[in-house]
């Protein structure tokens, strides 16, 4: 009898082993320390993928803050907004110190806030880039004048390659543009319609799948996103070249501080920790100096664009 009790006990015990294995990992929450604004350097970026953007930029912000200890900087912070207006507000309020983006958003924010481009940012190892306007290879559209009455897919309203460069190209060629919300809208015969795909990859897919006849994107995106199907496409024209990205700093900082930031960024690719921070930051290879000559050329392009835009708005 006791033997069977023992066996039964052993059997029941082993059968009753709880197999409910809940994930015991607990999220760690780090208390935000209250640090004086003056002790923080804030890096701004405009993106819809806020969390992802913070993840990409945080190592860069940390690297910068670590190298600015002598100026009392204790922490690096990433601030992401969904549009340039919000970014301009944050720059003006002093919440964002450095804003990194492609030239059009930089100059658009600079129209609204006190911001000064200081360096070129070689994102994806690209110093300069341009936009292309393309269509299907078998399309009857071959040149700019054939675009009238058709819809162009562009990325978004603050994209340099996916909006600014193609529209400035078309405007400078005397083509009148009409904005539409949907790709299948009817475009007047005397105008070129445009709508936003919100994504360069989508722009290419729209053209390949004939959702729209024409697309505009940067040259890198054109080749990358069409892949093996690039033969199904043809380029109609291309824009002027602009720096891939710029680093801009808000006005009001001491020149020593600004020069130190420039120095840190320009030498960032020379240290191991700097390379590591750059690697996660859109595969940046390095920062390069923005010469006065380059800056004045870019400013001239934007001045003309904003002037013509203001004239059209009036």
């Amino acid at each position, binding site marked *: 009898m*006791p*033997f069977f009790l*023992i*066996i039964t006990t*052993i*059997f029941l*015990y*082993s*059968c009753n*082993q709880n*197999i409910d*294995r809940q994930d015991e990992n607990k999220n760690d929450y780090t208390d935000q320390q209250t640090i004086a604004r003056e002790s923080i350097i804030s890096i701004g970026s405009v993106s*819809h*993928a806020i969390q*992802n953007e913070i993840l990409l930029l945080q190592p860069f912000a940390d690297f910068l803050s670590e190298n600015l200890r002598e100026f009392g900087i204790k922490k690096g912070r990433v601030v992401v907004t969904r549009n340039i207006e919000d970014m301009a507000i944050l720059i003006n309020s002093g919440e964002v110190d450095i804003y990194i983006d492609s030239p059009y958003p930089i100059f658009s924010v600079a129209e609204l806030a006190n911001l000064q481009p200081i360096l070129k940012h070689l994102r994806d190892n690209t110093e300069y880039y341009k936009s292309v306007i393309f269509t299907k290879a078998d399309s009857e559209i071959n040149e700019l004048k054939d675009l009238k009455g058709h819809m162009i897919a562009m990325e978004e309203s603050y994209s340099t390659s996916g909006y600014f460069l193609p529209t400035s190209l078309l405007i400078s060629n005397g083509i009148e543009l009409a904005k539409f919300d949907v790709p299948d809208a009817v475009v007047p015969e005397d105008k070129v319609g445009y709508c936003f*795909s*919100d*994504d360069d*990859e*989508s722009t290419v*897919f*729209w053209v390949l*799948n004939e*959702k729209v006849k024409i697309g505009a994107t940067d040259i890198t995106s054109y080749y*990358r*996103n*069409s*892949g*093996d*199907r690039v033969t199904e496409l043809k380029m109609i024209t291309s824009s002027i070249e602009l720096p891939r990205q710029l680093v801009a700093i808000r006005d009001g900082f001491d020149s020593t501080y600004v020069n130190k930031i420039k120095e840190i960024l320009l030498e960032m690719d020379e240290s191991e920790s700097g390379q590591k921070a750059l690697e996660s930051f859109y595969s940046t290879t390095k920062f390069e100096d923005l010469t006065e000559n380059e800056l004045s050329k870019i400013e001239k392009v934007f001045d003309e664009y904003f002037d013509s835009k203001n004239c059209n708005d009036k």
Partner: protein
Amino acid sequence: MNISIQKIAMTNKIRKKYKIGIRQRFTIVFSLFLFILGTANTINNIRTQEKVVKERLISEAKTIITILEASAAEYLNDLRIDQIREDLNFILTNDEIVYTYVFDKNNRLITDGTTLNKMRHKVFGDEISLNAYNSNEIIIQFTDNYLDVSAPVYLNIERTGTVRIGFSLNVLNAEIFKIRNENVISGMILLAIGIMLVNILINRITKPINLLTEGTKAVAEGVLNKKIEIKTSDELESLADAFNQMTTKIQETRQGIIKAKEQAEKSDKLKSEFLAQMSHEIRTPVNTIMNFTSLIRSDIEDQMNDEIKESFEIIDNGGRRLIRTIDLILNMSELQAGTYTPQYQQINLKDNIIAPLVNEFKIHAEKKDLSLTFSNGIHHPNITGDKYTLLQLFANLLDNAIKYTHQGGINVFLEEAVSNKFRVSIADTGIGISEKYIDNLFQPFSQEEQGYTRKFEGNGLGLALVKRYCELNNAEINVESEKGLGSVFSVIFNSR
């Protein structure tokens, strides 16, 4: 006592024969049983838990693919690649997911969630991809490293593409490994505990058995006052109680036997003392009668006629016969009472025993016109023996041979029997012994013919004493006889 020793030896022999005892046998059998049960249970647990873990992963995969499918349907139709990418990126934050793919309706890869997607627009032609592409329902496929889950994407009733997610099996495998380890370890611990408990249980059984064995052994060795204390409140305790009752009974019986033996010995001693006393009382007056008769005879020797001489002869014979009978009774009494102390010494059978006796009995033989011869075939027939009893032994045999032989003679042989053994044979040509009487030949007070009609005088003690004398001298006696032809009594001694 000899029987007890034999029993103990037998018990030990049996114990040695069975090298695996109950304890070992039970331990082995139950350990094997527990091992098999534990192994089966562990395997069953592992399988069940593995199944649960797999099913959980499959369920999780199904949930995620269903959400992705629902989310991607409209984006796929609108070719909002950024939105699909965002969904995929969100899914990819799950550590268990290693890849996500969205295909268009032509099975071309649209996105894997990255902007650097190098497989973009490619058609996947492997079996899993084709299965996924051709299926209208969720397909779950296990590969070596992944759990591949795919689902068709429908917008209304139109199929717009396929979504596919690869779950790493690393986490699952790690969890299965952990489950196996935990189960095996817990199984081993439980097995060890089980064996320990079985051992305790077996101890509860074998310990009382060992106690009973020790008790039985003690009884076999004659220790009857040993009590076995077993308090198990079961059959073993009852057995121990019964055993204790049995030893008590045996002890009581034994004491009774000892008492009876002591009483018998006391009675025997009294009998011997009585006999000795009685013999003395008879012998003394008989000796007196014989001495005075001898004196009277010598005084009137010259004046006696034949009739008177014969009368004196009868008186002398009767007296001698009476003294001889008393001597035999006394000797038998001493041997039975154990009061006779033999004095062993080196004896030459020929010179010290046989030859003098043959000479002595030759006179008696000649009186009956019988021949008495002695043949010796051994140079030095030396033995170790008690001279008095040896003389009595052969005197009795010779006396009997002459007494029961009426014609012919008696031949005595001393020869070697087998190696290191001597044989003394006394062969006569007498009346012989019937076959049915031979078995009782050496019983005290027995004679072939009983009652007043018997032809030969005697008390039936002679051959009984011969047998006892042989035993005292470590000799063996055999009889061969045929009625009417004669008898041969052979006594076999060990040399030295």
